[in-house]
C-alpha cells in the first residue's frame, strides 16, 4: 500500500515512517509542509495520505486544508488526519462530502501500533476511522439531549464503535457478544436512522454522517 506522509516534527515523521514500513507500507513521500504535501498528493497518487493538521508555513490548519483540497480534486482520496487535539468541527468538515475514506485520529493513537495500522488500512479501503474522543463527545451530548433516534443504550455502544470505523467482528470482540448480535444491532441502528439498504460499508459511513449531521443541526 502506497502512502504519502505529512508531519512537520522530524521525530514523529521518522517514527511514522518506521512504523508504517514495519507493517509493509510503501512510503512514497514523507513531507514537512503544506505546499510539499499538495504537490505530493497531486503527483504521486497514493493509496492513502497520512496528514498532520498543523503544518508549515502557516502553522495553522494547513494540513487539513490541503487534504480537503486534494479530496475536492480527487473525490474519495483516502486521507487519515492526525492531530494533537480532535474537534468535531474538523471531523464534520472532513466527512461532509460523504465519500468515506476518511480518518481523524489523535496522534496518541499511534502508541497502539496495530490499531493505528488497522485504521490506516480501513481508511485506504474507503472506510472511516474516527477518534473515540470525537464520537464520545457527540454521544454524551446527544444522550443529554433528547434520545437520538430512540437508540437503546446497547445500540449506542455499538454505534460508538461503528462510528470509529470498527468492523462487526471487532465490535463483537470488544463488547463480548456474538457477531450475529452485533449485526442485529447495526441493522436496527440503520433502520432507526432511516438509512436505506445498500452496500453495508457505505452505510456505516452514512451512519456516522447522520450522527455528525444531527450534531450540526443542533449546534
Amino acid at each position: 500500500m502506497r502512502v504519502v506522509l505529512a508531519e512537520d516534527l522530524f521525530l514523529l515523521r521518522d517514527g511514522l515512517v518506521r512504523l508504517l514500513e514495519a507493517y509493509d507500507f510503501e512510503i512514497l513521500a514523507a513531507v514537512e509542509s503544506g505546499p510539499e504535501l499538495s504537490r505530493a498528493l497531486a503527483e504521486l497518487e497514493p493509496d492513502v495520505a497520512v496528514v498532520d493538521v498543523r503544518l508549515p508555513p502557516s502553522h495553522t490548519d494547513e494540513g487539513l486544508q490541503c487534504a480537503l483540497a486534494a479530496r475536492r480534486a480527487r473525490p474519495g482520496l483516502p486521507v487519515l488526519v492526525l492531530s494533537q487535539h480532535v474537534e468535531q468541527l474538523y471531523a464534520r468538515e472532513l466527512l461532509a462530502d460523504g465519500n468515506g475514506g476518511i480518518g481523524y485520529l489523535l496522534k496518541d493513537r499511534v502508541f497502539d501500533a496495530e490499531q493505528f495500522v488497522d485504521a490506516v488500512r480501513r481508511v485506504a479501503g474507503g472506510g472511516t476511522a474516527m477518534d473515540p474522543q470525537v464520537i464520545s463527545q457527540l454521544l454524551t451530548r446527544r444522550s443529554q439531549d433528547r434520545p437520538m433516534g430512540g437508540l437503546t443504550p446497547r445500540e449506542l455502544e455499538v454505534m460508538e464503535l461503528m462510528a470509529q470505523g470498527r468492523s462487526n467482528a471487532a465490535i463483537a470482540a470488544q463488547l463480548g457478544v456474538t457477531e450475529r448480535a452485533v449485526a442485529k444491532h447495526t441493522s436496527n441502528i440503520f433502520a432507526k436512522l432511516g438509512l436505506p439498504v445498500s452496500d453495508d460499508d457505505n452505510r456505516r459511513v452514512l451512519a456516522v454522517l447522520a450522527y455528525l449531521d444531527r450534531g450540526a443541526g443542533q449546534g
Partner: protein
Amino acid sequence: MSTTPTGSAASAAEAGGSPRAAGGGAVRELLVAPVRALVLALLALTGSIVLFVVVAVSLALIPVGIGVFTTPPLIHLVRVWSGHRRLLAADWAGIRIPASYRPFPRDLRSGVTGQVERCSLLLKDPATWRDLLWLLVDMTAGALIVLLAAGLVLHGLFGLLIGAGLWKPVTALDDPYWYGFVPVGGWGTALLAALLGLVLLAAGLKFGPGLVRVHFQLVGAVLTPDRQQQLEQRIDRLTETRHDALDSSAAELRRIERDLHDGAQARLVAMGMNLGTIEALVEKDPAKAKELLSKARESSAEALTELRDLVRGIHPPVLAERGLGDAVKALALRLPVATEVDAELPGRMEAPVESAAYFAVSETLTNAVKHAGADRIWVDISYESGSLRIAVTDDGRGGAVVGRGSGLSGVERRLGTFDGVLAVSSPAGGPTMVTMEIPCALS
C-alpha cells in the same frame, strides 16, 4: 438606534418629494421634533427646578448636619436625572455626552463616618458641580430653547384655529384679540391671523429639529468634563485594568505551574520509574515487565491528555488555527446545551483580543449552561464600525447579575483590559442576553 432629528427630517422631506412616500411616516417625522421639544421643556421646568431647589436647600443644611445625610442621595438622584438626559441626547440627537463621576474608594467606611466621607467626596467631585450648573442652565436657557420649538408649533396651530372661527368667542369683548401683531376683530383679520399661524407653524416644523439639537448641544457643553478631567478618569481606569490584568495573569501562571507540577510532570516521573523497573525486570520476569510497560503507556497517554487540556485552557488550538468564529463554533459543539453560533468576521483580530473575547464567550456560555437551565443558546458574533460585538442569549430562567463575585464580573474585568464593555439583560424568568463590545482592529 440613534438618528439625528435633523437628518431624519431632511430625509423625510426628500421622501415627501417622491410619489411613493408614505404620508403617515412623513407626518410622524414632522411631529417628532415638536413633541420631543415639549417633553424636554416639561422635564426642564418640573424635574430640574425641583431638583435644583431641593439640592440647594440640602447644601445649605450641611453646616447644621442634616445636609450631610440628605445630600448624597439627592446628588445620586441628580446623576440619574442628568444620565437620563445623556441617554436622550444619544437617542434623539446622536450626541454622545461622556459621564465622568469619580468612583467611591473600595474601602469606604459604613455608618455616620462613611456618610460624612461620602458627602465630602461627592462635593469634591467637579462632576457634581457640573451637574448642578446644568440643572440651572436646563431650567433657564435649555428650557427656553425647546419651549420656542414647541411654542412656535402650538401657537401656529392656535392661529389656524382662530382663522377657522375661534376668533368669535375670543373677541366677544369690545377690544380686539391680539394674535401676534394682528388685532383680530373680523373675518379678514382672522384670516390674516391664520396666515401668520401658518408661518409660525412652518417655522416651528422647520427649525424644531435644529432647536432640539441645540438644546442637547447645550447639555453637552455644560456636562462634558474638560480635557484634564477626562484624562484623569482615563488614567484611573487604566490603572485599575492594569491591576486586574496583572492579577489575572499571575493567577493564570500559578494555575499552569500547579497543573504541570501535579499532572503531566508527575505522570512523566512515574513513567520514567516504571521504565527503570522494566529495565531491571525484563529478563527476570518478562510477564511483570509487560504489565509495567502497558502502565507506562497509559501514563504517557494520560500525561498527553492533561497537557492537551492545559493547552486548551491557555490558548485553544482551533482559536490559533482558525480564529474566533470557528473556535466558538467548536466550543459550542462540546457544550451539553444546543448552541447556535452565528459568526460574521471579515478578518482576524490581534491574538490577545481574540483570546480575551474567546474566554469571555467561554465563561459566559459556561455560566449559561451551569446556572440558567437553558434549552438553547444563541451566540452572535459580528464586527461593526471598529468594534467586535458578541451577544450570548439563552432561553433560561434569567436573573443573572454582574457583581458579587459572579462569573460575569470576571468576564467584565477580562474585557476591561481591552476597553471592552459588558452589558447584561436578564429579567427574572429570562431570557438572558449578555452583550460584549470590544473596540479593536481587524487584520
